[in-house]
């Protein structure tokens, strides 16, 4: 299939960027979106042009490195799928595809489609972990956790920190990311001692990073490649309010 791409090109953080059109001929429907970009880049390199910079690593949907706003939706048209797992069979011959970086004040563009997502690392650094050193894994079932809690925790822990929630949110809010990180520990006994300190620190850091607030559009849940529920945001809000009201 033959496609046309319109890609955001920006030389560095301070340069002005613009959408540039490229032809992508002879694309196989079995290619992933990133493989298609690889092929486009190969041709650009052979022609002596700068290849399009984009983030990627595992290419199996678990690392959270890939991003891309594809035709106006984060990670493209497939629900519950990261860009690396999106295949070109989701497009039609002759399609014009817009490819843009995540847009948020907290995610400045470094180059082309690559943005700086270290704001997420700083939110985790503010408390998204358990401070006690616990040694090796203990024996299975020595700590009993109700199935409902274990499931809720695992669903939240599926977050790969890609930033699609921020990208899709009309307010560029990081609420779904922070909520997932708050509630995967909040559902487990190990997370209890620091539960309220954690939510206060992580929410404060989220504010410092200049993300917007949640107004419950629901776009984050729809864009999330791990389909993390906005129920987690409600859990985070409850913990934050409890932490503010309690001691």
């Amino acid at each position: 299939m033959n496609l046309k791409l319109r890609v955001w090109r920006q030389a560095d953080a301070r340069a002005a960027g613009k959408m540039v059109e490229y032809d992508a001929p002879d694309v196989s429907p079995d290619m992933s979106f990133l493989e298609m970009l690889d092929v486009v880049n190969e041709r650009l390199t052979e022609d002596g042009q700068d290849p399009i910079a984009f983030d990627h690593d595992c290419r199996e949907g678990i690392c959270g490195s890939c991003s891309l706003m594809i035709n106006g939706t984060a990670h493209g048209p497939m629900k519950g799928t990261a860009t690396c797992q999106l295949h070109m069979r989701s497009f039609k011959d002759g399609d014009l595809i817009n490819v843009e970086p995540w847009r948020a004040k907290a995610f400045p563009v470094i180059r082309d489609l690559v943005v700086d997502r270290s704001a997420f690392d700083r939110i985790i650094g503010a408390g998204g972990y358990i401070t006690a050193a616990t040694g090796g894994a203990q024996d299975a079932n020595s700590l009993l956790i109700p199935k409902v809690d274990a499931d809720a925790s695992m669903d939240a822990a599926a977050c790969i920190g890609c930033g699609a929630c921020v990208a899709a949110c009309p307010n560029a809010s990081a609420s779904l990311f922070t909520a997932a990180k708050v509630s995967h520990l909040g559902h487990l006994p190990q997370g209890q001692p620091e539960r309220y300190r954690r939510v206060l620190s992580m929410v404060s850091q989220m504010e410092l990073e200049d993300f917007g607030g949640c107004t419950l559009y629901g776009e984050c849940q729809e864009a999330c490649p791990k389909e993390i529920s906005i129920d987690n945001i409600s859990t985070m809000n409850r913990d934050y309010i409890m932490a503010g009201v309690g001691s």
Partner: protein
Amino acid sequence: MNRATRFYQAAIGKKAVMGITGLIGIGFVIGHMAGNLLVFRGPDAMNAYAHFLKSTGELLWIVRLVLITAVVLHVIAAWQLTLQNRAARPVGYVDRKPQVTTFASKTMRWGGVILLLFIVLHILHFTTGTLRPSGFFDEADVYGNVIASFRIWWVTLFYVIAMIALGLHLYHGAWSSVRSLGYAQPSKDPLHRRIALGIAVVVWLGFTAIPVAVFAGLIA
């Protein structure tokens, strides 16, 4: 920094304030609508009800103060959140396609501005009698004020439009306030909001019925 300031500085704190003040507003509009429907039971029922409210004296003023405070806090928090949210994305997308954003959630800000304007005009119209589109105003004859006003097409139209804004505001707000406050039950489909839809439809129909019925000549 004291705890209350720190709490309010986060968007979640502001949303908690919006949620609580919003729920106060929802409670008020449901009661207000139920009271207004007495207009269908004739002038005596309506005027007796209005007289009863006035006779509560200090209690009425306490309720009014709570409501005014709620509106002021709701508007201030909304204003601050809007500025924060707009600043969070200084460079927009060339192409962005919202997937699940409802018309109601998209119009919360402008709809809220319309409702604020409506509240001010509505108080000047029916409470203080400052605005008299029909020329008639009698503090003791609430029923008469209603009938005289809604015979005028543009007064009726303004109220009908304002109630569409209220219905939409409630459809998003009655659902999102509970979620902002952290009281949502885990759900297979968190975007579903049957209770909010019910509240929005009932309040919208209840309020809209009055000006429309008067204008159509069903009550006189």
